[in-house]
């Protein structure tokens, strides 16, 4: 027997959900969804769980991650209950549940705390600059090292434990019995989805966005590789330099389109934006764009006179690495891939 918990609605609303309780269970959303199947039917079911406050059922469900938000459900909802936006909010709520530090939830729920966190990191970067007497060379060198350390520690301390928690909620706690070999066999599935997001192609309306998203992922991971492992800013190799220009251009051009469509609010997916959504696309844009300009200034010899530009880039980078990647929307990229992996294991 499951007890109904109407309070859950109040909790979910802090993660951006609204009006979902207007649902009168017609099921149009599930009928129009191109990803919903007989075995894994959504979003009506998960919306019903949310209305009734069946938190355990939601926590052990992969369905919010199986949705790629084409928005057809919200378009066709006769009650304007916005099932698509509920699925998005549930992804936020779930990533807050997976996060052992509980910081994700805090940042999702509170804009002031997000701003304070961004300010603290910015001040930290500036303080470090002051400590180094704003000497560009040692700072750039340290920054390059910092990037590697940050990536490694965020992964080991935050992301890995959180993915393990996700596994625990989804497979262990509900007592799903799976042979160990399956974990190895299906790894391919995870990598596939991580790099291609191929499931999004199954959404009828998503093809162009999937393409944008695909080259953005390639651009982003490529840029990460070029700056961290090939040390783009310090490189003298013409191929590496041009490659970096190309990748950073992809990142800021695609994210510019994402930001502007969120501002135009024409598509269902870009109608509703939470601070975490703005933060993600704007910071990614700023990161690509500032990296591009920094390298341009290096190449034109202007950077020494414009140290502020590098500091701007560094602040964005640190905020990205310490806030958005471990506790923000970046994690959705990770959880989605693992969700496909776990789904395959469960099946």
């Amino acid at each position, binding site marked *: 027997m*499951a*007890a*109904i918990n*109407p309070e859950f609605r109040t909790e979910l609303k802090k993660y951006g959900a609204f009006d979902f309780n207007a649902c009168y*269970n017609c099921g149009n959303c599930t009928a129009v969804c191109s990803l919903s199947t007989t075995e894994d039917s959504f979003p009506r079911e998960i919306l019903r769980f949310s209305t*009734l406050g*069946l938190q355990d059922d939601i926590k052990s469900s992969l369905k919010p991650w199986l949705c790629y938000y084409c928005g057809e459900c919200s378009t066709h909802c006769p*009650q304007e209950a916005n099932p698509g936006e509920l699925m998005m909010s549930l992804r936020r709520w779930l990533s807050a549940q997976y996060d052992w530090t509980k910081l994700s939830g805090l940042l999702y729920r509170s804009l002031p705390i997000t701003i304070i966190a961004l300010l603290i990191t910015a001040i930290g970067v500036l303080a470090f600059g002051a400590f180094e007497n704003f000497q560009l060379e040692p700072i750039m060198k340290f920054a390059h090292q910092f990037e590697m350390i940050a990536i490694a520690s965020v992964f080991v301390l935050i992301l890995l434990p959180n993915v393990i928690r996700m596994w625990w909620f989804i497979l262990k706690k509900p007592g799903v019995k799976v042979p160990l070999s399956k974990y190895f066999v299906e790894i391919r599935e995870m990598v596939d989805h991580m790099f291609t997001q191929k499931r999004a192609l199954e959404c009828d309306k998503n093809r162009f966005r999937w393409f944008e998203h695909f080259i953005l992922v390639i651009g982003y991971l490529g840029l990460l590789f070029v700056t961290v492992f090939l040390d783009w800013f310090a490189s003298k190799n013409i191929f590496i330099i041009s490659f970096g220009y190309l990748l950073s251009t992809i990142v800021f051009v695609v994210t510019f389109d994402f930001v502007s469509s969120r501002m135009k609010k024409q598509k269902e997916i870009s109608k509703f934006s939470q601070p975490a959504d703005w933060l993600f696309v704007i910071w990614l844009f700023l990161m690509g764009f500032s990296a591009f300009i920094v390298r341009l200034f290096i190449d034109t010899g202007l950077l020494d006179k414009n140290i502020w530009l590098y500091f701007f880039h560094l602040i964005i980078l640190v905020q990205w690495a310490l806030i958005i990647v471990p506790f923000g929307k970046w994690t959705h990229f990770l959880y989605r891939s693992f969700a496909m992996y776990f789904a395959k294991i469960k099946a």
Partner: protein
Amino acid sequence: MNKKIGVYICHCGGNISDYVDVEKVRKSIENDEGVFLVKTTMFACGDANQKEMVDDIRRNELDGVVVASCSPKLHLITFRAVTERAGLNKYNYVHANIREQVSWAHSDDKAGATEKAIHIVKSALAKVRLAESLEPFKIPAKKAVAIIGGGVAGMRAAIELSNMGCPVTLIEREHFIGGRIAQWDVLFTTDQTGKELVTILYNDLISRDNITLFTGAEVISNTGCIGDFKLKIKVTPRFIKENCHKGNLQKAILACPVEVNDEFNFDMTKRKAIYHNFPSEYPHLPAIDPKNCTRCGECEKICESVDLSQKEELIEVQVGSVLMATGFDPYIPAEGEFGFHEFDNLVTLPQFKRMIELNDSKLIFGGKEIRNIAYIYCVGSRQTDGENKYCSRYCCTSAIHAAILTRKKFSNIQNFHFTRGIRTYGKQEVLYAESLKGGDIFLQNYEDDPPVVNQQNKMTVITVNDILTGKREMSVNADLVVLVTGMVPRADNSVGSLFKLPKGRDHFFNEIHMKLRPVETVIDGITICGACQGPKNIMESVNSALSAATKSFSYISKGELEIEPIIAQIDNDQCTWCRVCAEACPFDAIHKEINGTKDIAVINNSVCKGCGMCLPVCPSDAINLIAYSNREIESMIDALAGD
């Protein structure tokens, strides 16, 4: 007398002619006695054929017409009208049914079907040969209407009849006017209260000279019929003089030592034997309830306006039509139905609606503040086992409206609705949407798997297998359970029996035809409206009230009534008054009268329906049914049984 008869045999576009050889039928009768012309036609009811029939009748001066086609239920009136248009008395038309009775019934035997069709047409010919022109009876009609029931339907109908210049006698059983709506607070969609509606109607009502209002009044007998109902009304006194001094009356109410359950609040509160339901109630005069008053005289001592010597009165009124608007009773759950009377925190929807009005800032029940409210729907309606198969129409909307009101009026309310599917039809759907958006939770169960109410450790738990969550068992802790009860017919429906009003399977008063004659009853001159006819909301009650008012007025507006001439006749010489005909008559149209030296049966022409029930029971064969005389019927039988 040899008649000139025209016969038309219809193909019905193949419906008949595919199985009946209509040409053979035509040939078989064309030389029969009196047949002047026989035609077959693709569609007898078609405009072209109707015109042709009119021309044929006029040109050939036909004095009898038969159409062999579909059921008379479909087109008897059509073809009677055709003969009238041609200047022929419509009773010279006879209808032969060769579709429902022949082609459709015998599609497997074409030869047999044709044979049967020939016999049926021949029998119609036999009848039309003997048919006579008839004129409707005319009887005087009293231009006045009695309305029984002073609720929203009765009051609105009274005002409408008054507008039409028709005197009205409005008879209300209670001492106060307004019926059920006086008990309701804010109403959807106007946000007016029921009391405000009563005020509007009452002020209008008393400003009119041609409406006479009786409260505390009951019709106890009726003699007479359409055009001339003679009603006897028993009026119980209020035991309070009119134009009394009201201040003292309020003190008198306080002084009354008798306390009884207040039915106005569905027994949740107490009232005195001298009472009004609420201070601004109409008429603005308390009443003493003689059933509970002990005649102790306490009130008389305080207030000179109290007059315990007032006596019951009997008043007679004569009206041409009676309009019934006696309303409904709320369903009372059976002992133990969802724990009713077993658990202390269960109320019915009407009780809950009174609670919302009676509580101010906090919703208190049984000394406890209420937060979680569970509503169980369809209690007493749509029963699978019980007799009430119908949907009570108003309850989904009313319960959701009450839930929204509760949430707005009191703080921290959470509503849980246990439904069998929500039916907030029409404009009321916006309430459902509002309720959902406001956070009310709806669960749904199948009819054979109702929610279960249980009490453990002072907690009331409702469990249900929610079909919206894959039939998972869900549970809710509720502080209060509201049984959303439907409407049932009045427990005391004696006034219906008085007029011999037929009831439907649901025991509400029955109309003649749900769609086409929705406010008329088979008792001529009596119309029904409002919830006495079946569950209705206020809007629907008023709709039907206006319709019934118009219909009642249309019976009597000319000052005389035309009555179908096909009725029974008594042969005074043959009749010896054995009363069997009177007993057989379903309409009470036969009574005994002295005729010279002996008693005979007399037919009340305005009540007789010509049903013929009295004919076969008469031992002396003294009754004749006009247009269905023995001669006519026997000649038809001969034709049917002939070669």
